[in-house]
């Protein structure tokens, strides 16, 4: 996803143009740029980083002009480099283009244009658009004609905006599948990937449909069908909502939106490049020592994966909290450190990687933000492809990281001869059921979880207990509760309870126990035993389990029954339940859900 915007005005548009991509930053934020029509030429300023950072370096709003286009990028293909950042210019610098979408036939067009003598500066699909227009322009000397000829040749999805020195008062734009709206203002007209681009300036908008293009001037505009060339008349839409709500796509909070995106995230995680998984697996096999490091949620992701590497791949990969790595990690040139970070900017994790590298260790990273410091620093990087995560509390990104590391564990298992290819395929088939089961929980269990969360939102102390893989799940779940609801929740191994903490238990202490499916009989019985210990001391227990209503699990005071699932995916389902439990508790307590107090999305300080 990327965001595009444009303004055709009568005053200097530098500042509002910069504002417009700031408002679109939620659509992507790894690089951005503007193209402004100055009296002499098209001035392009662009670079990699957040809009504010790029603006600091490049002074995006400085060029003087009354017309301009802008772009903020979320790279999925092609690296995050200044060259790949939009806007892109034609060879003679008379045309500038921004684009959101994917041009699927760009390779053949590019080959043809290179043959025709065009010089390309980036690896993007977008750049072909601007060279195509440049190619067609000389024949008719008519910009609109050249623009339409070019877009007719494109296959794939696009929202395109173009300015040119040949007609200095116009923005040309076109749409197919990617969103594009026009804003009608006072003395200026706007375009944007959505209303947020111009909501501060006008509430009147026109929504473009697929295969339509528009020519925008500061005081008028027209829309035509790309293929018939007929003028299209459209109703003007009044916008009457706040822009934040629009970005959330109708969800009350980003956190809930991102929880609902998890089925898709699992699918994306399973499609991560097999070559990269294979490469990391080989790196693991070649190393004497392998560490998994992360901070906060990603430390728990590491701990969860440590269990998977041990049980599936037969290797011990200690998980260490990044901030403690220097104190604990014993690294040399035969070591591998795998870092996990959503933002790729986590200071503690980056610092640990630097320390490891200085000792000659190899480094690998799993990150969500392309072009981030950790992604660039590590010897080997896997992009998790979860899409932007806006809520400060990580949900979908963490789940994706767990899946990717599980895929790595499977690959290592095969290399290590702990698994046959058949076993691996079988487990992968089980993982592929996960999206549907998560969807089932979201749809059919939300109400029960909501009811219990509201009922117990006044409880200030919780114990979250689990054994085996359910222990890191309990830890991560308790962190969700602490972060979003500001409620104390302590995760610990259920077996650890009797070695001290059990002294705390009375009728006022509330516990959640994360039960494994019955198919893992030993773990199941042990977990049940822990529940009995609490029950015997009159403690209150909520059980997350896979059994029957009112079955052996009747010793639970409250229960959330999950759909039957294979053991390899069961922990993920309990995590989703715990995410919703924390979310609804926070809603009941009216917390600032997407931006909890004292927390920041990426912690870039020591």
């Amino acid at each position, binding site marked *: 996803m990327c965001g595009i915007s444009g303004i055709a005005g009568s005053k200097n548009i530098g500042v509002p143009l910069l504002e417009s991509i700031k408002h679109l930053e939620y659509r992507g934020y790894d690089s951005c740029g503007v193209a402004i029509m100055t009296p002499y030429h098209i001035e392009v300023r662009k670079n990699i980083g957040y809009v504010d950072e790029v603006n600091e370096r490049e002074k995006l709003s400085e060029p003087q002009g009354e017309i301009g286009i802008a772009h903020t990028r979320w790279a999925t293909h092609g690296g995050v480099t200044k060259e790949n950042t939009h806007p892109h210019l034609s060879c003679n610098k008379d045309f500038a283009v921004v684009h959101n979408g994917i041009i699927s036939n760009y390779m053949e067009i590019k080959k043809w244009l290179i043959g025709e003598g065009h010089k390309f500066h980036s690896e993007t699909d977008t750049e072909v658009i601007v060279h195509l227009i440049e190619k067609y322009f000389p024949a008719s000397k008519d910009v609109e004609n050249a623009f339409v000829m070019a877009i007719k040749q494109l296959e794939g999805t696009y929202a395109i905006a173009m300015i040119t020195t040949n007609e200095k008062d116009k923005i040309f734009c076109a749409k197919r599948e990617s969103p594009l709206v026009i804003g009608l203002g006072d003395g200026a007209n706007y375009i944007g990937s959505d209303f947020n681009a111009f909501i501060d300036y006008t509430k009147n908008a026109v929504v473009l449909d697929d295969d339509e293009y528009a020519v925008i001037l500061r005081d008028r505009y027209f829309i035509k069908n790309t293929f018939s060339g007929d003028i299209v008349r459209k109703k003007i*839409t009044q916008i*009457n909502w706040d822009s934040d709500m629009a970005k959330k796509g*109708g969800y009350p909070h980003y956190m809930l939106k991102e929880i*609902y995106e998890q089925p898709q995230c699992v699918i994306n995680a399973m499609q991560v490049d097999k070559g990269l998984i294979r490469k990391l697996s080989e790196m693991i096999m070649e190393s004497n020592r392998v560490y998994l490091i992360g901070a906060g949620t990603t430390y728990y992701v590491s701990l969860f994966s440590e269990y998977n590497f041990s049980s599936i791949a037969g290797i011990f990969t200690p998980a260490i909290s990044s901030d403690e790595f220097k104190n604990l990690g014993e690294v040399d040139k035969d070591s591998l450190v795998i870092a996990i970070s959503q933002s790729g900017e986590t200071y503690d994790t980056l610092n640990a990687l630097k320390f490891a590298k200085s000792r000659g260790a190899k480094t690998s990273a799993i990150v969500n933000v392309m072009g981030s410091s950790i992604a660039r620093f590590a010897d080997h990087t896997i992009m998790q492809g979860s899409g932007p995560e806006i809520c400060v509390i990580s949900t979908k990104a963490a789940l994706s990281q767990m899946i990717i590391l599980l895929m790595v564990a499977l690959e290592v298992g095969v290399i290590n001869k702990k698994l046959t290819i058949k076993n691996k395929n079988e487990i992968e088939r089980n993982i592929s059921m996960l999206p549907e089961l998560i969807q089932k929980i979201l749809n059919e269990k*939300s*109400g029960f*979880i909501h009811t219990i969360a*509201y009922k117990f939102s006044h409880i200030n102390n919780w114990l979250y207990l689990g054994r085996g893989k359910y222990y890191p799940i309990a830890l991560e779940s308790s962190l969700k509760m602490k972060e979003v609801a500001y409620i104390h929740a302590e995760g610990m191994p259920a077996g650890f309870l009797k070695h001290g903490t059990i002294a705390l238990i009375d009728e006022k202490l509330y516990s959640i126990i994360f039960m494994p499916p019955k198919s893992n009989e030993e773990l199941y019985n042990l977990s049940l035993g822990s529940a009995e210990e609490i029950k015997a001391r009159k403690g209150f227990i909520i059980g997350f389990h896979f059994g029957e*209503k009112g079955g052996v699990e009747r010793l639970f005071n409250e229960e959330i029954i999950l759909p039957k699932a294979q053991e390899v995916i069961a922990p993920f389902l309990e995590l989703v339940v715990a995410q919703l439990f924390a979310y609804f508790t926070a*809603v009941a307590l009216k917390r600032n859900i997407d931006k909890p107090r004292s927390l920041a999305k990426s912690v870039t300080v020591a």
Partner: protein
Amino acid sequence: MKALILAAGKGSNLVPFTNTRPKPMINVGGVFILENTIRLLKDSGINVINIVVGHEAETIERYFEKGADFGVNIHYFYQNNLRGIGDAVSIAEDRFSPGEYFMLVYGDIITSANIFSHTLQSFNMVKEPIASVCLTPSTKMFGNVYLNNEMKITKIIEKPKKGGLGNYVLSGIFILPSGFFSILKKTKLNMEKALGILINDMGLRASIWEEEWIDVVYPWDILIANKILMDSWQRTSISKSASLKGDVRIEGPVHIEDDVEIHSGTIIEGPSFIGAGSFIGNNVLIRKYTAIGKGCTIGYGVELKNCILSGNSKVGRLSFIGDSVIGSNVDIGSGTMTINCNLDKSSVKSRISGKIIDTGLNKLGAFIGDDAVIGSGNTIMAGTVIDAKVRVLHHYTYPK
């Protein structure tokens, strides 16, 4: 945008009140349910309102007339044979032009904030059919929806099997295109089937409502609705013409309307409401969540707690009314006690339309219909329903 409010239903689970009035004309927090709906619609910019009336239609028409007093324009439709929701919706078809979107509102919903403007905002974002959805403690009787990650509804299950589902449910507010009327006709006016077709053909997006919400189905729901509404109050308002004579203590948000007279020694705990022209005698204790309608008389030393008195009712001295709903023109003799719990603290059961129902509430008093007369010195057992116009003799335990 225009609204279409469904207010024709009989509400047979809400006896004794619906014997003498339509369900939307039940009082909560000092207003009628329908009045609250119309005010919130107006606040969200909707002032052309169509109401489908049926059961006890004249009560609604008499009160709202053409809407001038409420700043809206009301048009009535009559559903003479109560044939369900689909039929009620279809009656208003002619009011909407092709391609026009309208807001469909079930007339028995109470929320803690303006659900209509919230739904409108969702609509304005996507310009597609919208259904407001929420999570409720009990999802047995509502349409359970399945959502995908774009908040599109993929399926609606009207009545799930025993054990129930934990799904989001329809909260009774929709924004639909006028094309929905022809879909309704295709399904022989079956609302569920029509929504199913809409989902397949045009799509139906959910707008998630996370504030409080209740569909008033049983008499005790009236008390919950009353609490939801009163909890949303931010401040106290006391009319200039109200007179507080001598020592009157007020705590928390209270609304006291015109010409109310309150005598010395009375304590009022908010949130509470006292309607225009009511008389409150000496040493009355009005506890939280009490709504006294217009023109009521409360005698010396009465204690009221979490209860609703519709207009023009009287409570004689030294009585206790708790966790109860009293209709209008009810006369309660002095020294009457409503019992509001069972001795064993079990949840109170109530007989509704001949069926015994466990209310799940540990504290619940009585439901007394309009125009009933209760003699002095009566004891009314927990969960009792007293029909409209009934006379209960002096010194009686009701029911025996």
